[in-house]
Structures are given as C-alpha cells and as structure tokens.
C-alpha cells in the first residue's frame, strides 16, 4: 500500500496540473474543475495497478475526461455547454475590443491573451478538448486518441477543423483584423 502510494505520488500526482488544466478548460469553472480532479484522482488511485498504457499522463487525462462526461450526464437537463460554430450564428459574448492606439505593448498582449482564451472558450467542447490536449498538454495524436477514445483519423480531422474554427472565432474576437495571426 505504501509502495502504491509512493508510486502514485511519483507517477500520477506530477500530472495534477495537467488534470486540472483539462478539467478547467472543459468545465470553464474553477470549482467544478476541482471536484472533477478530486473524483479523477480517487478513481485513478483505485485503478492504478491495472493496465494503463505507456503514458500515465494520457491515462489520467482520460479519467478526468470520463469524470467530466459523467458529471455532465448527471446534470443532463441543463443546457449543453457546447456552442458549435455551425450551430450558433452569433457568439454568446460580445467580441472583445482591442484598442490599437494603446501605447502599452504589455496591455495589448494581455488583451490579446484574453481574446484567445475567449475564442478557445467559445469553441465547441469537442474542438476545445483536442486543442487543449494537443497545444497545452503536448500530447501526440495517438495519446489524444487514447484520451478521447476516438480513432486516430478522427483525431486528425477534428484537430484540423478545431484550428480552423479557432481562427474564425479568434479573428472575430479581435475585430476581424487580418494580420491577427501573423
């Protein structure tokens, strides 16, 4: 038991940040993310000795995702969180305004970061999830396929669509400036 605890501390707990980051991006709420991570850690610990593939991080993130999905199912009557780009005409939140005259470069950078976060937040869950796993957690396609229980081909096409969708949302958030990404 103590040995199990030690191994869990060394192999799983270092991915606590990743678990929280994914949960936080999926739920978009700090409190819900903490609940999900807490559930996921317990599940992970109880199943730690079962087969978990080559990457403990991907394995833990898969558990986080499952905890998130079962939490969403529990609160099913609530409106779905997704607002897919195909489904919504207008964004839920008004686009952030970037003052181009702002002399403080740092202030502009902060404004843009918020916009990018906002744009990521507006993507559908499916898209946001693959982008967070790929760009923030640095998982390979194979690992993402493991976490999301999708075939690799689906991961590839979803990631491509997600990036395209983010470009659209992000450009909208920054007032449609064409050089926003250059």
């Amino acid at each position, binding site marked *: *038991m*103590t040995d199990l*605890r*030690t191994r869990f*501390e*060394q*192999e799983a*707990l*270092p*991915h*606590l*940040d990743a678990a*929280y*980051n994914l949960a*936080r*991006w999926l739920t978009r709420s*700090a409190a819900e*993310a*903490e609940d999900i*991570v*807490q559930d996921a*850690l*317990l599940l992970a*610990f*109880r199943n730690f000795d079962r087969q978990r593939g080559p990457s403990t*991080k991907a394995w833990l993130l898969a558990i986080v995702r499952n905890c998130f999905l079962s939490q969403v199912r529990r609160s099913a009557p609530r409106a779905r969180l997704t607002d897919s780009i195909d489904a919504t005409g207008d964004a839920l939140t008004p686009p952030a305004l970037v003052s181009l005259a702002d002399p403080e470069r740092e202030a502009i*950078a902060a404004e*843009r*970061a918020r916009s*990018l*976060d906002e744009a*990521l937040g507006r993507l559908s869950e499916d898209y946001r999830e693959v*982008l967070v796993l*790929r*760009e*923030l957690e*640095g998982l*390979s*396609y194979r690992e993402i396929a493991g976490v999301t229980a999708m075939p690799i081909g689906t991961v*590839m*096409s979803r*990631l*491509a669509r997600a*990036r*395209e969708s*983010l*470009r659209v949302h992000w450009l909208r958030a920054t007032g449609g400036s064409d050089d926003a*990404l*250059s």
Partner: protein
Amino acid sequence: MPCPEPTLLNAYVDGELDAESALRIEGHLASCGTCAASLRELAAERAQIAAEATYHRLAPERRAEMVSHFWRAAEPSRRARPARTGARQFWFGAASGALLTALAALALTYPTPDTRSEALVGDLIGAHVRSLLSERLIDVASSDRHTVKPWFAEHADVSPPVADLADHNYPLVGGRVDYVDGRRAAVSVYRRGAHVINVFAWPDSGVRLPRGIASRSGYNLVCWQASAIDFCAASDAAGEELLGLTRLLEPAGRQAPVE
C-alpha cells in the same frame, strides 16, 4: 502532387507524418504558394496558442490542500472512515487500517529515519513552494550562464556550475539566493514546458540526502552531491523529467543516484 487535404497539412505541422509523406508535402510546398501560406498560418496559430492561451494551474497552497484531501479520502484510517459506507469501501478501509497498524509496529522496531534529512527535504519543498507563491522566483533573470554563475559567486555560499540547456528543452531562466540547511544556497531556475525547476546548491554539511526521486505533496525532489556541494532539483514536473535534467547537470561519469 495535388494540394494536400488540410488534415495532412495539420499532421505535417504536428510532426505526425511518416518520413515519406512528409517529404512529399515538402516537395509540394516548394512549388505551391497557397499551401505554403496555409502552413505558415498554421504554425503561427500553434505558436500563438502556446504563448497566449492560459494554462490553468492551481495555486500551490490550494494544490497542497487538494492533495492532502485526496489522501485522506484515498487511504482513510479506521477512525476517519465515515460510519455508513459500502462493503467495498469497508474492505478498502479495513485493509489500509490493518496495514497502518503493521507499519506502526515496524516503525517501533526499525531505527527512526534521519530527522535532519527529513527536515532538509521539508526545507527544500518549502523553499520551492515559496518561490512559486511569491514574485521572487528570480533575483537575476538571465538565460546566460556567464551572467548567472558570477552572480552566485557574489551572493551565495557556493558557485555551482550553471548550464544553459535550452537545446535539451530545459531553458535556464535565472538565478536566486535561498536559505537551505542554514546556508545561502545558489538556486538556478530552469523551465520544463510549463513547469518551474529550482536547482538548489549549498555546501555539503553531511546531512544524508534522500536517494532517488523523493515525492512530497505532489512535488518531486532529486538530490545529488558533487565536489562537496549538495544539489537538489525540485519541481512539480514528473520525476523522469527531473532525472533528465540532473543527468545533464552532472559532470560526466557521475550519475544522479537512482535506486
């Protein structure tokens, strides 16, 4: 070759294509301005997400609370166990309770652990967490080891070797002085992805260093000794990543202690 599907361009940017497909794409990119522009756009988008999207992180004290809450729930002692639980949880609790008793018995017959060593580990974790909590992670911000090392010589009790390991994805971000084991320790600060790694160095005083990867509250420590200087790398990065850094910092022929 006709213009590749967007999916393929994405896979190319992600380095997920096999060599042959990648070569074919590169051949096409050389002659197609549209695809070359799409590729630049994709690469810029990736870089921008990496630089600007928020990596949500628990505050260190919240994280510590969470970990201790988790352990209380994961390994409940008999007393702490709630009255009404399912059969499975009962056996889980009973088993861990029996084990705790066995361990307590062991602790009575075995010599107590080196308390100075344990205090040192506590010091190091505390210093690491404080560096993340306060704004004072870095006293001298520089990725140039020729700036950091002389700074240590002036401000700390030791002037350990400092390396810029950006090529190995451990970029040096600066240095700091901290208080460890009663000495002014030189702290080189490296980054590994989103993680901060503090490498403490202080004059060896004979306190036993923990062997291998030591873990406390979700933070990992790897300690070693070289030329009468004690070193300790502390981070929330995975133990393997810490070992990777210590291997790079260790002089050739000397290996970080691994159990």
